[in-house]
Structure formats: structure tokens, C-alpha cells
């Protein structure tokens, strides 16, 4: 596959699948205000995914639109981070929507939004005008996500003993998956190798965790490969749900 197309899909699918997981929270958040905030974040990410997928379809040149890319690919063709396909709660291995852990969700939101912010900042200067435009437009959104979720990380980390323990547990679960945030290759003139933002991300993350009185877990050698199309066992279940209508009603118009 074309390197630029791959690069765009890695970003597009990460936004898409992240939004899909956030959508599972709707109606089940700890407070009504968070129901709104999580839907809002899902909506923003969905919007980013739509812009990026539409552009990916143009790059591909096979006439596929955002929906054909979102709903009719096979699992191996999705290029999102494994991190965002993990269920909203750990230890619900064969599925996603059953469990919802606000600690894990909040930490993931913070980690991904810092990452997106750093990426979009750089992509604003892309030679690819389309990508630069999407990045500029999305930057304001992910800054807000980063602010909102970071506030919660601090609140819950430096809250009660229970909340701190829950956050620390979730942090241990998620940390190995963070390795993939820096794994994908760049495309000259288009976008940076993800590795280029690693130092910045790790510095910001450490600062946030310190403020939240959380302890950085030891490094992991795990190498998740969602960006190469090799996912976790959760992805198939997520896609089965997400693609259901498009698969069950071929030729449907919605």
C-alpha cells in the first residue's frame, strides 16, 4: 500500500475506533456531565475520522467513500493502534461493551489526546495541504480533550485511596500498549515518524502522572502492531458490532 495512504489510515482508523469505544459509554457515565463530555469527544474524533477516511479514499483512488472504508474492510486492513481497540475495562477479554472502567477510559483518553495533539501540531506544517488542513481544524478539539481528560487523571489519581489504586491498576494495564504510539514510519514531507514525538509525549506523560501522584510502571517490551494491521482479539468483536448493519443489509441506503 502507498506509504501516504497507510499513514493517513493509521490516523483515521485510530480516531474511528477510539470514537467507537467512547460511544459505548453513552448513558453509562459516572455523572451526567461526563456522559456529555465523552459523547462530545467521540463526536469530535468521529469527525476527524470522517475527514481522514474521505481523504484516504481519494488517495486510494478506488472510489471508496468514508463508509466503505469504515464498515466494509476486513480486520487486517484497519491500521489503528491496538490501544484504542481495547475494551473500556480490562479483563473482559472476549468483548468490549460489557465492562466500563472510568479509570482506564480516562487514562486512555489522556494518553491518546496528548499524542494526537503532538501529531496534529506537526501535521499542520505538512506539505500535504489536505492533511495540514485537517490537522489545524482538529487541533483545537484534541487540546480540549487533553485538558479535560488530564484534569480527570489528576482528580482521580490524587483523589481517594481507592481512586488512586484504580488509576494505578489501569495504568499498569495500558502502559505496554503505549509502545505503539511511536511505532509507525513517517512519510517525508507529509508527516513525521511517530517516533519523533516520543520524547515530548513521554515528558508530558511523566509530568501528568507526577501531578496525579501516580507511579510510572516499568517499561514493557510488548510491541503491539495494530498500525500494521495485526490487532488484538478484541478488534474482531468490535468490528462485528460496528459493521453489523452494513454486512447484514448489502446495498442498503441509510
Amino acid at each position: 500500500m502507498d506509504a501516504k495512504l497507510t499513514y493517513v489510515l493509521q490516523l483515521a482508523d485510530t480516531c474511528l475506533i477510539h470514537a467507537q469505544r467512547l460511544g459505548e459509554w453513552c448513558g453509562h457515565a459516572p455523572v451526567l456531565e461526563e456522559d456529555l463530555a465523552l459523547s462530545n469527544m467521540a463526536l469530535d474524533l468521529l469527525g476527524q475520522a470522517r475527514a481522514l477516511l474521505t481523504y484516504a479514499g481519494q488517495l486510494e483512488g478506488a472510489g471508496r467513500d468514508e463508509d466503505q472504508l469504515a464498515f466494509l474492510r476486513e480486520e487486517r486492513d484497519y491500521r489503528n493502534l491496538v490501544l484504542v481497540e481495547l475494551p473500556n475495562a480490562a479483563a473482559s477479554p472476549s468483548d468490549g461493551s460489557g465492562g466500563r472502567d472510568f479509570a482506564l477510559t480516562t487514562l486512555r483518553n489522556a494518553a491518546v489526546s496528548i499524542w494526537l495533539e503532538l501529531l496534529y501540531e506537526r501535521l499542520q506544517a505538512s506539505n500535504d495541504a489536505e492533511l495540514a488542513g485537517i490537522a489545524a481544524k482538529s487541533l483545537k478539539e484534541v487540546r480540549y480533550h487533553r485538558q479535560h481528560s488530564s484534569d480527570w487523571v489528576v482528580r482521580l489519581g490524587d483523589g481517594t485511596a481507592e481512586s488512586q489504586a484504580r488509576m494505578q491498576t489501569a495504568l499498569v494495564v495500558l502502559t505496554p500498549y503505549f509502545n505503539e504510539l511511536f511505532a509507525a514510519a513517517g512519510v517525508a514531507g507529509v508527516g513525521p515518524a511517530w517516533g519523533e514525538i516520543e520524547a515530548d509525549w513521554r515528558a508530558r506523560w511523566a509530568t501528568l502522572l507526577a501531578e496525579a501522584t501516580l507511579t510510572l510502571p516499568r517499561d514493557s517490551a510488548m510491541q503491539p502492531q495494530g498500525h500494521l494491521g495485526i490487532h488484538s482479539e478484541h478488534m474482531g468483536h468490535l468490528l462485528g458490532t460496528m459493521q453489523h448493519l452494513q454486512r447484514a443489509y448489502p446495498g442498503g441506503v441509510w
Partner: protein
Amino acid sequence: LAREEAFEARIDAGDFIEAKDWMPDHYRKTLVRQISQHAHSEIVGMLPEGNWITRAPTLKRKAILLAKVQDEGGHGLYLYAAAETLGTSRDEMTEALLSGKAKYSSIFNYPTLTWADIGVIGWLVDGAAIMNQVPLCRCSYAPYARAMIRVCREESFHQRQGYESLLVMMQKGTAAQKAMVQDAVNRWWWPALMMFGPADKDSPNSEQSMRWGIKRVSNDTLRQKFVDATIPQAEILGVTVPDPDLKWNAERESYDFGAIDWSEFWRVVGGEGPCNRERLAARNKAWDDGAWVREAAMVHAKKQATQAQAA
């Protein structure tokens, strides 16, 4: 007593009552019950629609549905705020919902079984809700009336979106999609008619509410208005409603329609609908699972306040 008479006089004059104004206890209680019930309906209503967010068939429809459910949460928020102006806290109201003491609209005790249900809820359920709610924009209690103006504006938008999504399926969709829409209409039609509440003759609370300007139009009048407005829309859509007795009455210039199964209505109101238990269980689970989050937020805020003081 003088205050009560003055209050009644203001109501009769069409004045709006504000939170700071004196009001009779019963007026206050009736309003709290009605507004909180309405707020609860918005919150519980997020569940049947939320059930399809992960399965929406296109990204556009997913975004529309997410935004809609988010709006409902927003309605819940400002309705709770309106009720709080009457001196009842959101926590108290939440507690009443979770314990099953407070009611919410029975319509949300029916399941969303297909994607077409989402469109039909927009068209029929939001349609019926608007019909119920438009008169409330002139409710004598001003904070409620203001909230309802905003709610109604957004609900109309949702209603149009729902209808439009059905139109697309009926006009451009496959046979299977059309059948899905018809099936959804069959299942939601009667419950939608029940949304206007019991027949006027069986609606004991209505009279006082009418006098106080909390309720402006009777259940049966609204129901008739809804049927009259909806049937032409069904015809444009190309669906039928599951009522063999429905027919145009040229004399009344209105539709006659069949008898409502009130035993079903009372069974669902009484807690024995298809989803009553699950809706309450879901709300309770969300609340219980979130206890640690709310507690942590409170403790953190206190820590911050203490530090700010110390500094």
C-alpha cells in the same frame, strides 16, 4: 391565604412565576414531580437509543445519533437545573429515580430492536413529545417554560432528522430496509399514542394542573392532534399504522382511531413492561459503578481548596 389568592390572581392574569416568588406547596410539589419526571425521561431515554450508537450504519448516522443522545443528556441537565430552582437537589431526584419511586416516560420501557427503531423514535416518539411539550413553553413557572423552549427547539430538529432517515430508507432503500421500517412503525405506533397519558376521564391530576397553567391542553386533545398530524406523514413515507379502525372523519375533520390497549399501558407504567427492570438496572449500575469517581472528585476538590487556603 392572601398570598394564595394573590398567586392565583397572577396565574389567572397569565403572569409567569419565578423561583424567588412565593408559591403554594402543592404547586411546587406538582412542578418538581413533573419536571424531574421529564428530566428522568431524558436520561433513561438515552439507553434505548444509546443501544444503537455502536451499530449505526454510516458514520453520518452515527454522528447524528451521538449528537442526539448527547442533546438528551443536555435536556436532562437543564431540566434538573429548573427543578433545582424549586429547592430539590439533583441528588434527591436521582435517588428517587434509582429507587423506582420516581417515574419516567413509559415509552422508554420498550426495546429498540432494529435500526429503523431509531428513526421511528425520532419521528413518532419525539413527535409525540413535542406535541406534549410545546404547550409547556407557556407553563406558568418561568424557569420550566424557558427550559422547554430550548428543549422543544432541539426536539423538533431530532424529529425532522428521524423522519428524514426513514424517508431515505423508504425511498432509496432495499425491500428489507422498507420492511424494517414498517415493522418498527408497527411496534411503536400504539406506545407512542400512549405517551399522551390516560384518557381524560381517567386523568385525575389534570384539572388542577390545568388551572395552574402547568398543563395547558388535555391528553385526549393532544393525542388527536398527534394522530391528525402524523397520518399524512405516514402516507408520504409509505407506511401504514397498525390500526384497522383508523379512518378520516370528514365531519370532525379529524381521524377516528381504534381503542388503545389500556391494560398494556398500565402494565408498563406498573413496572412490567419489556424493559422496565433493565432500564432501572442500567441506571443503577452506572450510578453505583461511578460512586468512586464522584467521591474522588469531591475529595480532590477539597484538597485543592485546603491548599489554596494554606497558600
